[in-house]
């Protein structure tokens, strides 16, 4: 999972061609127009490179920070089967973070530098992970809604013009198909369970619905990078298109569960053949993004603590490798 509102917080990228020879830029755009993939050592406009570094690293950070809210329930998963599934899922998120860091590194930035940007607070990650997991039902809601929204966002990136990012996305989407299903299965079990369990499920939907809707980022009118990213085929659909698609498939699922979506304005529009939602509270979105969400502090602290506590381990391994090298007879 977990791209959201990516590429919305940096500087406006320069139009292709600025600062480099116009011929190269034109050739580059032609390759993209005919759906040719751009590979690491190919010539690319600096703005394309920077946009990708920012988007891929934000995406990677989101996966890594995304391990924390669900990881919060690993030790308390209610059955051994659920425990194994949850560990595997959180582990996959770590793996996806690594596929993405690996893709970003092909653009000439080191993972250590990206991690540094995350820990210093300079880099963004998906704001959805700044919400707390308060009950077991939150694990179900994250799988169902958050992974559902993420998959919706990610499938088009499988056709992204940058080869390593597209390939990482293909692998991620393939692996992620179980994430959403296990989340829905948890919700279904709770919805069919005791009154306390149904209340738990409803409460989780209550808290995760709007943040999930916001995962698609600002509405198109306010999203400044969409046009350029679409020309570069980094992005294929607009935020609002993807958001609508998510709403249309998710509302019937909530109805199947017998749960109520916390939006009194929600209605089916026969003419448009879409579910229409009430107004989104963008103030909340921007507040959480700016670091004022319920768990921004905890999430970054947890990452910093792991990084600091692990320093002596990483140093020891590097020191041991250096000793081993010095002990080996030098080859000619």
């Amino acid at each position: 999972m977990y791209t959201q509102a990516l590429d919305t917080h940096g500087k406006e990228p320069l139009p292709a061609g600025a600062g480099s020879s116009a011929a190269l830029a034109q050739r580059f755009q032609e390759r993209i127009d005919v759906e040719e993939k751009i590979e690491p050592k190919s010539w690319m406009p600096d703005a394309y490179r920077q946009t990708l570094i920012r988007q891929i690293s934000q995406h990677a950070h989101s996966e890594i920070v995304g391990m924390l809210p669900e990881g919060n329930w690993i030790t308390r998963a209610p059955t051994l089967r659920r425990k194994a599934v949850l560990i595997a899922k959180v582990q996959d998120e770590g793996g996806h973070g690594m596929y993405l860091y690996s893709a970003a590194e092909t653009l000439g930035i080191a993972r250590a530098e990206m991690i540094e940007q995350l820990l210093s607070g300079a880099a963004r990650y998906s704001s959805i992970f700044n919400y707390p997991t308060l009950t077991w039902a939150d694990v179900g809601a994250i799988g169902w809604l958050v992974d559902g929204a993420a998959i919706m966002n990610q499938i088009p990136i499988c056709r992204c013009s940058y080869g390593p990012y597209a390939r990482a996305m293909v692998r991620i989407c393939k692996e992620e198909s179980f994430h959403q299903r296990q989340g829905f299965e948890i919700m279904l079990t709770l919805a069919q369970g005791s009154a306390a369990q149904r209340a738990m499920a409803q409460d989780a939907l209550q808290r995760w619905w709007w943040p999930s809707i916001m995962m698609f980022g600002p509405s198109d009118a306010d999203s400044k990078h969409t046009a350029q990213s679409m020309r570069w085929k980094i992005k294929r659909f607009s935020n609002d298109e993807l958001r609508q698609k998510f709403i249309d498939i998710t509302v019937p699922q909530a109805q199947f569960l017998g749960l109520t979506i916390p939006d009194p304005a929600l209605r089916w529009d026969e003419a448009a053949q879409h579910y229409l939602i009430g107004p989104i509270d963008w103030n909340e979105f921007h507040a959480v993004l700016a670091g004022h969400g319920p768990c921004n502090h905890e999430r970054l602290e947890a990452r910093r603590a792991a990084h600091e506590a692990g320093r002596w381990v990483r140093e020891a391994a590097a020191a041991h490798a250096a000793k081993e090298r010095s002990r080996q007879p030098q080859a000619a």
Partner: protein
Amino acid sequence: MSSDWPLFEVFIRSRSGLEHKHVGSVHAADARMAIEHARDVYTRRQEGVSLWVVRSADIVASDPEEADALFEPARDKVYRHPTFYAIPEEVKNL
């Protein structure tokens, strides 16, 4: 002492009979660790039966600037392909 582990490229043989294919990279302090990391990161779903890891710094790649010089000359050697030759239809087993 730097604690940044070097980058290794990872190649997987998905099953016997197929060649190793590049899948991505891992960081590791040493070769043994690189194999373990490649296993944990890239083969969680039985993706492979064999792994190669090689330090990224040791890979020599062709320069895209030279792509024309390296690969274009092969383009007009159509006579290397069997379809270049017109053989009467009644002749079999060619």
